[in-house]
């Protein structure tokens, strides 16, 4: 039986780890991201997600350095994303040591890009990242460009389309819950999990180990991710996994 995965996410702006709150990235947590990752590696994480949320690509080289550094240090899968708009960019990230590449804005603007990438690299290394903000009536709306632009897609419909286009996994982020510490938007997670047959990673809002358990047990996610919490707790990922195991979740 496949284990449920625990995935720390590292959110980078211009090469520094930042805290993400409702997609605002103002506080730098670590200037040296690879130090943070040293700990993740020792602490038996199952995977690492690394996202470039820089406002421009001026410091993109720093992101590449982090990706390359991560792949040298952690012998677990590495998903990277942010500013991915071309097949060549996907190839470059894979060559730097990424195992999966996540695409978001470009997937919505040009869904055939997902198909093209899946054809060239295989669906299993194409992740479509979906950022959701709930509308005033509660509708889970898909937003792109780091939460700056609203689309006409609803969460489940876009997730299904992304799968049809060739996505191998969905990285589902609640912008509303991001940095809130309120736990995942479980209804949203369940909505998307039920809509697709590919794995769904829940992200945004987890701040207690119980939140992680809920993401799997209530939301039905195949993997749970968190960012901020892992930077502020000693031995955090190990403790999280112990808690998940004790709650009856099959983790490694």
């Amino acid at each position, binding site marked *: *039986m*496949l*284990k449920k*995965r625990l995935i720390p996410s590292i959110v980078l702006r211009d090469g520094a780890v930042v805290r993400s709150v409702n997609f605002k990235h103002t506080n730098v947590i670590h200037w040296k991201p690879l130090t943070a990752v040293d700990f993740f590696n020792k602490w*038996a994480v*199952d995977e690492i997600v690394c996202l470039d949320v820089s406002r421009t690509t001026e410091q993109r080289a720093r992101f590449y350095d982090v990706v*390359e550094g991560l*792949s*040298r240090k952690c*012998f*677990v*899968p*590495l998903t990277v994303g942010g500013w991915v708009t071309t097949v060549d960019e996907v*190839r470059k990230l*894979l*060559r*730097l*040591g*990424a*195992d*999966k590449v996540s695409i978001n804005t470009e997937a919505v603007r040009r869904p055939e890009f997902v198909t093209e990438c899946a*054809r*060239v*690299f*295989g*669906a*299993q*290394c194409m992740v479509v990242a979906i950022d959701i903000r709930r509308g005033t009536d509660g509708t889970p709306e898909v937003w792109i460009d780091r939460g700056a632009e609203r689309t006409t897609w609803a969460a489940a419909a876009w997730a299904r389309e992304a799968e049809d286009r060739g996505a*191998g*996994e969905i990285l589902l982020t609640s912008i509303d819950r991001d940095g809130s510490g309120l736990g995942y938007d479980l209804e949203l997670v369940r909505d998307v999990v039920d809509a697709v*047959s*590919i*794995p769904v990673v829940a992200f945004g809002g987890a701040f207690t180990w119980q939140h992680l358990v809920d993401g799997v047990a209530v939301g039905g996610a*195949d*993997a749970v991710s968190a960012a901020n919490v892992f930077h502020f707790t000693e031995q955090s990922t190990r403790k999280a996994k112990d808690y998940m195991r004790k709650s009856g979740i099959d983790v*490694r």
Partner: protein
Amino acid sequence: MIAIVDYGMGNLRSVLNAFEAIHAPARLTTSVADLRDAHAIVVPGVGAFGDGMRNLTALGVIETLAEEVLVRRKPYLGICLGMQFLAREGREHGVTGGLGWLGGVVRRLEPRDAACKVPHMGWNDVAIVRECELLRDVDERPVFYFLHGYQLDPDGDRAVEAAVVATATHGERVTAVVQRDNVFGVQFHPEKSQEAGLQVLRNFVKLA
């Protein structure tokens, strides 16, 4: 030196990093001369079967690979796609011929359990069917990282079935490790499976 064939598919860098971590001299290469000099050959890769085979063909290394592995008997380790190439043919986006060193076909995963999704992505238990040098000193029931939507299916070929060393379960049987003589293949990613994976690579290095 271990030659890691660099044919533009997937996480080749990670494989190099893993060999470096266990202090085994390795090199990403496309050169026929390196394949001839190497003590062992690794073909890693994630991606589509057809593109992979086309890239290998375009590099012009297939004949050399066959000579070094099948004639000169250098240890070969195929990882993920590199294992699938051992099949007679791949059925991903159309039918493409494989290296055919082992036989069988590469087909899409068909889990009978709806809870088992495709691609098969994540950490799974591996059951060892028979003893193999590649799995020496790993746990009796190790956990490895898988990432694939297709698998090498013996397709009724008894010789291929006999080459199966270990399997995983994902709504159906998944071929996890194969071996015939000096030819090894792992469907999982040893370079992404932390300590268990590094041990597999150490075992392979000892054969070189």
